[in-house]
């Protein structure tokens, strides 16, 4: 039985892996074409302000060095084979290996995203539960209004608002960056980092709660109207006990799954929030790579973010597979 279960899981992972691979190839190819056809001159991006001092001969040399003189397809294949050998290439704007930059930026982003993810998940869930338990009261209306308003608020707008109110007017938080300006890296304390993290994390969470809250609210309302809750009430259960025994267990799983599946939105939100708060994470690197035509870095980021979003979805699937007894134990009879 155990073996059969593992076998099924193996096939499931294999299929997922295949899908991931084809998706990745397609995404890489499309991004490659998009960047190649964009009006940005990669050589100019590489040289920057010194452009005037560079003659046509030097230009050609640079183009040759980066392989920019070859046909697009060849460039793509060159890059692809290097990738298969484990080499993501060198960033043109940072002039350092792409893998190194992603690694470094990812740590920053991860702290931001995990904070926002946990905050929005927990707060959103509690809001949704409260709203459903107090359906049609003022609490419910307030929470619903908040969620609907926020669901339609762009992240950059919310970020700017937070920045203006809490950093500029009130001066409670630094205006941007991941660490204080003009301080040696070795002297930056954890407190400094946290201080710089709070505003972007709150911005992401404020918007992130809407989805979980509304979803949890609807799900719990359905559960409370279900036959099994009616029967639980017939057996004398009510209030918190009723929620604890039957509500929580039936809404927690979909909420957690939803939160994992929202990795993509989290990443997208982080890109915008990091840009506004000049927070040196993956998002900011993505914007720079795109704007300045840094193909190796951009493709590296694309691959990485695809993996990231995919991992979220995979975890969501696996949780259902492992936790829901209907899939977990269905092969035991």
């Amino acid at each position, binding site marked *: 039985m155990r073996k059969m279960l593992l076998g099924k899981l193996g096939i499931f992972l294999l299929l997922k892996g295949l899908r991931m691979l084809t998706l990745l190839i397609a995404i890489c190819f499309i991004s490659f074409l998009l960047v190649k056809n964009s009006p940005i001159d990669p050589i100019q991006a590489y040289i920057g302000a010194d452009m005037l001092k560079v003659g046509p001969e030097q230009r050609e040399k640079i183009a040759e060095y980066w392989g920019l003189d070859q046909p697009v397809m060849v460039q793509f294949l060159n890059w692809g084979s290097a990738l298969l050998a484990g080499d993501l290439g060198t960033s043109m704007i940072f002039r350092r290996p792409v893998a190194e930059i992603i690694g470094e930026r990812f740590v920053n982003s991860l702290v931001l995203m995990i904070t926002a993810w946990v905050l929005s998940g927990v707060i959103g869930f509690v809001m949704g539960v409260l709203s459903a338990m107090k359906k049609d009261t003022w609490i419910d209306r307030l929470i619903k209004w908040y969620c609907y308003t926020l669901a339609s608020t762009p992240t950059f707008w919310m970020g700017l608002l937070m920045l203006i109110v809490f950093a500029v007017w009130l001066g409670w938080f630094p205006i941007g960056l991941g660490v204080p300006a003009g301080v040696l890296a070795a002297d930056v304390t954890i407190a400094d980092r946290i201080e710089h993290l709070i505003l972007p994390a709150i911005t992401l969470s404020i918007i992130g709660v809407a989805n979980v809250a509304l979803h949890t609210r609807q799900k719990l309302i359905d559960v409370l109207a279900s*036959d*099994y809750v009616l029967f639980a009430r017939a*057996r004398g259960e009510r209030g918190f006990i009723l929620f604890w025994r*039957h509500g929580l267990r*039936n809404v927690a799983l979909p909420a957690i799954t939803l939160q994992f599946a929202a990795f993509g939105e989290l990443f997208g939100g982080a890109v915008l929030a990091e840009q506004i708060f000049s927070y040196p994470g993956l998002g900011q690197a993505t914007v720079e790579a795109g704007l300045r035509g840094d193909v190796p870095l951009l493709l590296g980021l694309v691959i990485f973010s695809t993996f990231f979003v995919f991992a979220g979805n995979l975890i969501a699937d696996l949780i259902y597979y492992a936790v829901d*007894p209907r899939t977990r134990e269905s092969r035991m009879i």
Partner: protein
Amino acid sequence: MPILEVENLSISFNQYTAGLRRKNIQVISSLHVTLEAGEILAVVGASGSGKSLLAHAILGILPDNALVSGTIKYNGEVLNASTQASLRGKEIALIPQSTNYLDPLMRVGNQVRTSVKTGDATVAQRAVFKRLHLQQSVEKMYPFQLSGGMARRTLLSTAIVSDAKVIIADEPTPGLDPVVMKEALNNFREFADNGCAVMLITHDIESALTIADKIAVFYAGTTVEVAPVEDFTGNGESLRHPYSKALWRALPQNDFIPIPGSQPHPSALPTGCLFAPRCTMATPACSEKQPDMQNIRDGMVRCMHAT
């Protein structure tokens, strides 16, 4: 004194119809039913006649948009929302209509244990499983792993362990094979013989007749007749209401003639006697006002021409 008395119960639902107009749909009208300790009352009636709603009304678990009037007495005391809440699961137990009433994500053993009000829940649950021939391994299962018969017995277990005085079983037998069904019915007889009052809701008159003491016949949201089980005999000449007689004669072992027409929908009830459009004995007076419940020969009937 009856342990449970339902008098003049009416239930209607507020519904929004096209154009956002509110409409009040009467689904149960002036219903009377009494339940004695040590007795099984079978409630029979076609689907949609209000049987489940009666059960939910007694327990006080109707949906919020239901309007209820009339009185429900338990041990002679008129119930209100809070006394109903304190009786639920302690004095009055429900055996629900379908196995959807089990929490899909909770092991069934635990669900039965939550019904135990006094003493060791695990011991009580294992004892009742043994009594109903459910293996001990069943307690670890989830509802989706149970066969129909196992699920029914699990639902029955929740009522047995609750030690309630009144048991309301809402269609507990469909989908059971004959052996298990007989066993389930015998369990209800046992409840009654131990001093409980059982309300057995069913649309299977034949099996109801094998164990019940009294039969209440439902039609379009009201009781048209309450009769001792012995009256269901011969050609139905001891029965009081034309609908009960027709139901009895429609059984396969009798004439097997179905009653023409169908039960009116709650949104289009006739003004007078609810059965008038289908009644062969109807007179013009029948369509004027709804006949009152009257006591005739040790039973009750709602027909002005009853004998």
